[in-house]
């Protein structure tokens, strides 16, 4: 049964991955390349001073260490694989274990999990470390930002679990509307770690309009990704079969080993 769930999750991931890959290829790639070009034309914006893993001086992103075509191709591929990974992990494994506890019925469960996944992987970490535009200087070191990002992912996941728990408990006694209200409360708690975390000052050579536009695009891209994962997953899941799926295998052959 776990294997069926995993298959559905990966299928949803493939669907979302194709679309997200197209978004990478058609919109994100050209825009990031354009921003990189602006950064290099501008000079003196400190871009050359940043210490990358290579320690190389004046390393040209999207044109220096690797050919542009490789960068673009790998980014599109990575975008597709990113969706497959999220689909497999969230809509495969996590959905399998948490399905009985996820609020809602039928397709709603897919969308709730999609929202929770977005909050966990992107939303909560972005409260502390919003997506930055290419070439921007960040005051926190990479060695600080990586644990910070990972820590906020854990906080986001716990918040979503707490919200689900609050919904289920409140819904039992006080009804649906009160349950939704109770589920909203834990998300307010996200403000606490967001305020306590060290501030990451960002400065860049790009114009504010372009910077905000790029950040908006990155937020939109990830939100779209999770929406597509949820839509795909809802489509691929036979919700009419929800209740009976557990006790009565739909096709006896694939459940033989677990019939006990």
């Amino acid at each position, binding site marked *: 049964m*776990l294997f069926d769930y995993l298959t559905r999750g990966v299928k949803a991931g493939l669907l979302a991955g194709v679309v997200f890959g197209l*978004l*990478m290829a058609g919109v*994100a*790639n050209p825009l*990031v*390349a354009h921003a990189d070009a602006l950064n290099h034309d501008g000079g003196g914006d400190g871009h050359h001073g*940043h210490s*990358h*893993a*290579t320690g*190389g001086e004046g*390393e040209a*992103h*999207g044109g*220096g*260490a*690797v050919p542009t075509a490789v*960068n*673009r*191709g*790998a*980014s*599109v591929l*990575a*975008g597709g694989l*990113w969706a497959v*990974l999220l689909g497999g*992990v969230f809509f495969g*494994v996590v959905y*399998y*274990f*948490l*399905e*009985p*506890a996820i609020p809602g019925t039928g397709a709603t469960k897919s969308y709730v999990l999609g929202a929770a996944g977005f909050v966990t992987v*992107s939303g909560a970490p*972005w409260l502390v470390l919003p*997506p*930055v*535009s*290419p070439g921007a200087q*960040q005051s926190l070191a*990479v060695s600080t*930002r*990586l644990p910070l*990002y*990972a820590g906020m992912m854990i906080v986001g996941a716990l918040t979503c679990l707490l919200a689900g728990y609050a919904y289920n408990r409140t819904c039992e006694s006080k009804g649906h509307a009160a349950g939704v209200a109770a589920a909203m409360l834990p998300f307010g708690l996200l403000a606490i770690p967001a305020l306590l975390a060290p501030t990451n000052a960002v400065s860049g050579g790009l114009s504010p309009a372009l910077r905000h536009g*790029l950040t908006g*695009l*990155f*937020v939109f*891209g*990830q939100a779209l990704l999770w929406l597509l994962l949820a839509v795909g997953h809802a489509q691929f899941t036979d919700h009419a079969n929800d*209740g009976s799926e*557990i*006790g009565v295998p739909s096709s006896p052959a694939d459940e033989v*080993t*677990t019939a*006990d």
Partner: protein
Amino acid sequence: MSTANTVHGRIERARVELTPTQVAAGALLVLALGFTLLFVQEPLVHDSMHNFRHAAGITCH
């Protein structure tokens, strides 16, 4: 009934269905993927995903 429709039931069911080797292999796979995503600082790999890491909102420079 170990296959009741609860989270606990799901865990029980997974325990019955999966061998410890499969669980270990799956955990290792996820760990390896996460490790790759986070820590591949090999400049060639890292830089070739430059555009994607911006689009995903996870930047390391």
